[in-house]
Every structure is written in structure tokens, then in C-alpha cells.
């Protein structure tokens, strides 16, 4: 299964090689050209000779993770987070480090050695380390180097009633949406950008948008769902099972009104459930794209995910499939009616 395979690959920001190779392999036969740009974005084109507006679809390949920043004399690794991770979720999780996938466990001082005050507070990042089973520093240095990146070691798969769990759903689910859409063909020039380093500041999208300079871009994301207790309705950003989330605003962009209206219209016409992303927090690649060159209209479609930026998050496969359907309906609407903006 595509989504499971994508989630089990590791691609902490700046080391997206495994996901890039996987996607390149799957799409090469389906597009005119596929290239990797200087920052590592994987860019594919369909219908470059077509008339009509130039459309760019993006999803980021990278995921949040950890970086090895030190090795102590006992062979334990000091770590920093790469991208936004709640430090409280780290303790006792399994990770794999670097391209050789060296296994490790995140450890901390055992509870019987902790003072009373320490027990009452979550363990902070400086007190956490990764244990790779090395007997000392020299032993650890044979397996890992400072600067290596560590990803969570988690099996992905379906469970419950059409639910799916795995790490890095943000944004492998976006990559999976694009890999579904790439099977189709539309009558305008269509650029697919699988981007790098979103989690550390929308970096891949910034340069991809500058290079492609499309007339409109649509970004596909895994976004946080807030439908768990004790969040009240107005505090829930999105809800699982209620359809793809259409963004109207986040920290990085205010989405063009006509673009929102077109997405709503095609969803209603095709009877596809949708919800608005009812939060303005967080940033997306749409913000970076929107600010590129002389300005590029951009929108965001997201699949709601619970427990995002943690070792394991959950989405609804119905939401995933409806996101593909809504994206397809939107792209077809461009064929018939042109750009919304």
C-alpha cells in the first residue's frame, strides 16, 4: 500500500533521499520530465506544451525528527529536534539514525534516581539522549556521526474503521495524494513539486515556486485535528472523517476568496464532503509560494491528522480519498472554467 510504504520511509528535513528516490521511481514513466533541483525538490511536469494556466501542486517529502549533536563518553547521543516536536512525546520512543538506519532508543535518567520535583515535570530535551547500544564513545562513533538525523521507528498501517496510523503522515499523505493525481492528465501545463525542508521553514517550496513561477498553486498537507477531549467545538482546527480541510487563512497566507469559493463550489457539485480548517495557526508552503516573484495565488487542501508531529498520527482513509477527489474536481474545473483568480 502506497501510504504505508511512504510512511515507513525516513526523510527528516534535509535528508529526503529515500522518499525522493521512491517517488521518482514511481512517476518517471507517467510524466514528461522529472528533475531534482538544487535544494533537492523533485519536480515533474505533465503537458508542458499545453496552452492554459500553469498549475503547481506541492506536497513536502520531509518530516520532523531529531539531529545528533553530540556523543558523550559513555556512547549516548545528545539530540536536538528538527522541526516542531513536543519534547514530552520523545521519551522511550524507538528511532533509526542516518542512512544506515542504526536503531536507537530515547532514554533519560531512571525514575528511582529522580528528585521529587523532577518526577512532577516532563523530561526536557537536554536531559534526553539516544541509546544505540554502544559501549563507549569510540564504539558509537563507528555507527553514527554528529549531524546524523534520526527518524521515529514506527510501522504504519490501517486499523479500526477505515483509519490509518503511522509516522510522518504530515506530509506523506500529501505526497500520496499527488501520486494518485499524477495518474490523471489535464489539459493545462501541470507541475508536481515534491518539496524539501518544509518543517524547518517552507524552504523547498520557496525556491520551487520561484523556479516554476506558476499561475496558481495548490498545496496538499496533513494538518492537525483537534477533535479530542476537552477541546470545545470552536477550538478544533479540523475533525477526522469530515472530509478534506479547506484553508481560509493561516500564519503564512490569507487565501484568495475566489479560490476558496471555487473549491467549495466544486465540492458541493461533486458531493464531496469538506470542512474548513478552523484555525489560523501554523504556516504552509502556500505562504511561501504566495510571496514568490510578483505574487502567486495559492490554496491549501489538508487531510486532518490527530497527534501530528509525534511518532504516530492517525487519519481517516475516507478523508484521504475525498481529498484526491476534491483535487481532481478542482483541476477539472480549471479545464472547463479556467482559473478562479
Amino acid at each position, binding site marked *: 500500500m502506497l501510504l504505508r510504504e511512504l510512511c515507513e520511509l525516513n526523510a527528516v528535513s534535509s535528508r529526503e533521499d529515500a522518499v525522493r528516490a521512491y517517488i521518482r521511481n514511481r512517476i518517471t514513466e507517467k510524466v514528461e520530465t522529472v528533475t531534482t533541483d538544487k535544494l533537492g525538490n523533485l519536480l515533474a511536469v505533465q503537458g508542458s506544451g499545453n496552452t492554459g494556466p500553469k498549475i503547481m501542486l506541492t506536497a513536502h517529502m520531509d518530516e520532523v525528527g531529531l539531529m545528533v549533536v553530540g556523543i558523550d563518553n559513555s556512547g549516548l547521543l545528545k539530540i536536538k529536534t528538527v522541526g516542531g516536536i513536543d519534547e514530552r512525546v520523545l521519551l522511550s520512543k524507538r528511532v533509526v539514525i542516518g542512512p544506515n538506519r542504526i536503531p536507537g532508543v530515547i532514554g533519560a535518567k531512571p525514575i528511582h534516581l529522580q528528585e521529587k520535583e523532577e518526577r512532577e515535570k516532563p523530561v526536557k530535551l537536554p536531559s534526553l539522549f539516544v541509546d544505540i547500544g554502544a559501549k563507549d564513545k569510540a564504539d558509537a562513533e563507528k555507527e553514527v556521526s554528529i549531524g546524523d538525523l534520526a527518524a521515529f521507528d514506527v510501522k504504519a498501517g490501517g486499523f479500526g474503521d477505515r483509519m490509518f496510523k503511522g509516522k510522518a503522515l504530515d506530509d506523506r499523505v500529501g505526497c500520496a495524494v499527488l501520486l494518485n493525481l499524477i495518474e490523471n492528465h489535464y489539459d493545462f501545463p501541470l507541475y508536481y513539486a515534491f518539496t524539501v525542508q518544509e518543517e524547518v521553514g517552507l524552504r523547498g517550496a520557496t525556491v520551487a515556486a520561484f523556479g516554476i513561477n506558476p499561475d496558481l498553486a495548490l498545496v496538499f498537507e496533513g494538518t492537525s485535528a483537534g477533535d479530542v477531549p476537552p477541546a470545545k467545538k*470552536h477550538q478544533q482546527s479540523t475533525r477526522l472523517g469530515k472530509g478534506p480541510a479547506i484553508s481560509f487563512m493561516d500564519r503564512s497566507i490569507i*487565501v484568495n476568496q475566489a479560490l476558496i469559493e471555487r473549491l467549495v463550489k466544486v465540492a458541493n457539485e461533486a458531493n464531496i464532503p469538506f470542512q474548513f480548517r478552523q484555525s489560523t495557526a501554523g504556516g504552509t508552503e502556500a505562504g511561501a509560494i504566495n510571496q514568490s516573484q510578483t505574487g502567486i495565488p495559492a490554496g491549501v487542501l489538508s487531510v486532518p491528522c490527530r497527534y501530528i508531529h509525534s511518532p504516530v498520527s492517525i487519519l481517516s482513509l475516507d478523508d484521504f480519498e475525498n481529498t484526491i477527489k476534491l483535487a481532481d474536481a478542482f483541476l477539472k474545473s480549471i479545464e472547463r472554467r479556467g482559473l478562479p*483568480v
Partner: protein
Amino acid sequence: MKKLISKLTAISSPSGREEQIRAFIKEEIKNYCDELREDKLGNLIAIKHGGNTKIQFAAHMDEIGMIITDIDENGFLRFSNVGGISPHRLYGQRVRFQNGMVGVFGAEKVEDIKKLTLNKLYIDIGASSEEEARSKISVGDIATFHHEFTDLGERVVAKSMDDRIGCAVLIEALKRVTNPQNDLYCTFTVQEEVGLRGARTSAFGIEPDLGIALDVTATGDTPEAERLAVKLGKGAAIKVKDLSIITHSKVKDLLTELAKTNSIPYQFEVLPFGGTDAGAIHLTKAGVPAGVISIPCRYVHSPSEMVDLNDVEAAVRLVVAVMEKKIGWS
């Protein structure tokens, strides 16, 4: 001028939804420029030819607002801020939506008023059910403060002086300039309040030789105010620094020299917070010397922003002086 300011501030124009103000300004200036453009993000650019040096003037059309994030089962609206909004300034105020609907802010019961957050506030549009509210307002709609323009004589008060007063200055300068010595790109920008976004993309397109933003600045002349040198009524403020820019010395000298030779009252401004469109313009491409002519304004980002018409007049004269000075920086 009062009439123009009154009309400009009456329009609701939150960041990202500047259609109404753009249409108004377009109508106001169409006979005073050689070319009128609208770019992809919605910036309105009025071009008037006069020389080789390209000057971009930027005044932002948008104002801070409240975006609706949820409508509850009783028809109350929840919202998030668009631009810098303090929760303590909202309770009891009114808002207006672009379709003309008016609402008032209410708050949940809070034990400690210091702990009031936007999350605990809501907007009441007088709807008695969710259905009624949804028939009038949609999630994603953006409201702005609803407060009338008030004429206090030399001084005037309104919502959205930030930055309708900059727009008014630029409109008036465009009308008054008779002998431009540079190519003028008078830009009415979008989305300044959420991160100088319109200025960034418009400057990329224009590639100016000089950028000058027109915006409000805070004053230090009220009781127990933060210590700031700028005072209401003491002239146009030539910005030296804020968080987005250190004014290029060439630009600061040019503005100061022009103010002196034309006997325009001016003051220097050092703002320890905030930023303006000039911040985005000066980092465009390989860099653009840029500065700001500020209009001193009390109670910025409140529904009652106050400016002094003498400062406004000084700013207009200084802008016209720049337009009519052969600069030769191209």
C-alpha cells in the same frame, strides 16, 4: 482632505479582502496617472511618468480584522485575529462585515480580566440560531472595527487610520504633483498587517530605484506613554529605524533636505517595535534604498486612531517634494 479621509476610513477592508477600498481608490485617482495596474495579489499601482529614476511609494490599503473560525449552535461567532489585535481592546466594541452585517464583541465569564484571550471572546450578530447566523456569515469571512469618523477640528479620529491616512496622503500627492521629475509608482498595497506581503511582491515586479512607504507611527506624547520622540502635530515623521528597516542614509538625508528647503515641519522617528512596507521593499532582489514618511498617530490598532491634519499636510508636501525632485539614482 477631511472628506477624503472620512470616505476612506468608512470602508471595511481587512487584509486579503481589499476589493472595496481598491475600487474606491481606483475611481479617485484614475484621472491623475498615466497608467493604472492591478497585480496578482491585488496591489493597485498608479504610474505617472516624469524621469528615469523609478520611485515606489507604498501605502497599504488593508486594515486589521477578525476572521470567523466557527459558528456555534446558538449563532455566536468565534474568530481569530488578522493582524495585531489586543483582546482587551475588543469587549463592547462593534464590528462590520463586508456585506454590511454588524456584530458586537462579547466575552465568556473570566475570573481574571488579565487572562482574557481571543479564544474567550465571541461576536454576536443578533442571530438567534446557528441557521440564521450561517445564512448571513460564513466561516472565513473577515470583519473590521465599526466606528464612525469624527472631526475634532485640527485632529480627526477613525478606525483604520492605519493606513488609510497613508492612502489619503498618496492620493492627494498624486493629485497635486504638477511637474514629476521621476517615474512614480504609487502603490496601494495589500496585506501589510499580516507581513508586508503586498509590498514584497509589488516591489519585485516594479524593481524601484527608491522605495518610500507612507504609514502611521506611534507617538510618545500622551500621559505616561512609552518614551518616544514623535509627537502629534509636530510634522511629518522621517523614519530612522523600526524592526523592519534601518532607513538608508541616502534616503534619510534626501527627505530631511527636502523638508528643510521646502519649510515642511518634520521630526525624526525611531520606533522600537513594528515594521512597514519599506522593510519588504528594501530587501527586494539586489536591494532597494528605502525609507518611510510616517504620519504620527495615537491609539494605533484601536477603533479610534487619531491623527493631526497639520502632520498629514506636511506628509503630502514632503511626498510631492520627492516626486518633483530630480533624483537620478537609476
